[in-house]
């Protein structure tokens, strides 16, 4: 499903890449940008988190004619007095003007790096409203956003992700360069499809899907580990010879209640002690009738 998403997002679609501290989703975001550039689409990027150079690093220079990066990294709050793009400009009118400025015939794809920055300065309802208006508006064909899930409360993350038509959550994989992606896709008919894939990103930002992370794989690994012999490679001997094994199995443990012991206890043989009991009047003490004079 990850490769389907890379091949194209449907019109009016909203894709969110969710990452965390342990694995950055920016490389996957760059893969989406590269794939869209290869499809001859026009892309506008709102760059808050990292500098323009860092974002362009690795993208092929020939495609940058259709790539418009709006630098919101150097002054997003207007502290220097002449900002390029501030976070307050994240609204329907300003963004529509920004996209229309480049006067391209086709509606563009808007990439936001990252939504977390905007969520820190604008309330979640305002951000959700703007995103929804952008999707329906028509100036922008599709929206792709990067969200750092560990920087917000679960409710905020949930609200934003509820708007999305596709969600990709990335996490580090078992081996070095691999990562695990959990993809959720909501189609217009209301059907929700989920999938989990292991992928790795190459130098030119193309994504290689490696395999499905089967839980069976994990199980075979653990049984292999269990079969590793702990008695090997020791300086002392922990193994048993055949005669020692036999003697061990014959041994009855002292407090185990085996069949022989049970019969011995239930049927005492001759010579074992016998208990003779004659009820004594003093033994018949009734707590409710201590003087034994009630009826």
């Amino acid at each position, binding site marked *: 499903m990850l490769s389907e998403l890379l091949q194209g997002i449907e019109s009016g679609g909203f894709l969110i890449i969710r990452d965390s501290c342990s694995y950055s989703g920016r490389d996957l975001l760059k893969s989406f940008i590269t794939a869209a550039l290869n499809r001859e689409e026009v892309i506008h990027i709102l760059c808050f988190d990292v500098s323009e150079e860092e974002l362009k690093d690795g993208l092929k220079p020939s495609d940058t004619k259709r790539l418009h990066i709006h630098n919101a990294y150097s002054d997003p709050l207007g502290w220097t007095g002449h900002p390029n793009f501030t976070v307050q400009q994240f609204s329907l009118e300003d963004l529509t003007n920004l996209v229309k400025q480049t006067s391209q015939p086709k509606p563009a794809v808007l990439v936001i790096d990252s939504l977390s920055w905007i969520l*820190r300065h604008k309330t979640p309802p305002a951000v959700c409203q703007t995103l929804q208006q952008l999707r329906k508006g028509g100036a922008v064909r599709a929206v792709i956003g990067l969200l750092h899930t560990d920087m917000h409360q679960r409710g905020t993350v949930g609200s934003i992700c509820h708007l999305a038509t596709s969600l990709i959550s990335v996490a580090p994989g078992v081996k070095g360069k691999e990562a695990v992606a959990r993809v959720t896709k909501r189609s217009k008919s209301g059907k929700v499809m989920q999938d989990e894939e292991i992928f790795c990103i190459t130098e030119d930002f193309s994504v290689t899907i490696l395999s499905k992370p089967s839980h069976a794989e994990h199980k075979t690994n653990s049984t292999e580990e269990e079969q590793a012999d702990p008695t090997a490679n020791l300086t002392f001997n922990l193994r048993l010879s055949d005669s020692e094994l036999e003697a061990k199995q014959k041994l009855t443990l002292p407090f185990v209640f085996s069949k022989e012991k049970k019969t011995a206890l239930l049927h005492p043989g001759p010579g074992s002690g016998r208990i003779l009991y004659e009820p004594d009047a003093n033994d018949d003490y009734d707590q409710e009738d201590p003087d034994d004079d009630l009826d």
Partner: protein
Amino acid sequence: MFSELNSILNISPDSFTRGEFILVSDRQSDASFLIHHFLSFYLRARCKVCFLGLVQSFCHYSAVSQRLGVSLTQAKEKGQLVFFEGLKECLSVLTPKENNVESEAMNFLRDPTVGLRSLYEFVRSSVIGSGSLEEGAEQWGPSVLLVDDLSVLLSLGVDVGAVLDFSHYCRALVCSQMQGNMVMLVRCNGEEDDDDDGDVVSEVLLKGLTHQCNLSLHVQGLPTGYCKDIHGQMEVCWKTRQGDTPHLQKNLFQYKVYDKGASFFARGTSSAVL
């Protein structure tokens, strides 16, 4: 300057990566020895250092740096070091006297909602420096910003968002624009998985800064408890792309702090054990 740490990070006063944001963090431990290391390292590398010392006095840093072989007083006189003594400056805000010029940088003490813009303006003025160079003034290397530490700003009532904005702007100025380096210390008190309201704010700050940084040094106590010979463990996490492939590399070391330095070694190879 700890030579073992230099070899771990693959840097030396003559050659280090520029434009890097190094995040030093600790959890229920004290990572300030790393701040002293970076201070002496960058002074030795002849960089122009701007140091925001918010938690200790100048004499404290000066005394420790003396043991590491660097004189802060001399560096300040030569103009290599701009030292912002937070403790003294906040007194001038809280108890203003007539002939005392109130420093604008700490005006968030009066009103925490104002944010850290004035502190950023102070950093900007000291990093960019005066326009004209005096005759005979020495040429220093790339600018470096050191902050010790950011969590105390949270205790003073500043909002997490404001601190993250401050570090974002400092990074945009020092790392991207001036191609210098930045080292910031963040401290956390609670356990990582705690969901209490107690320390959520510093966790959010730590996570936000971890997303922004290039290199993260996380100091913690040993998970097995107190040990006389090993003072703790340090996790080094590189985020830079090595050889054009996106790569996240983590390494765990144990350390012991001495009088005049610290030694770092792989797990289980402490001199007390071997």
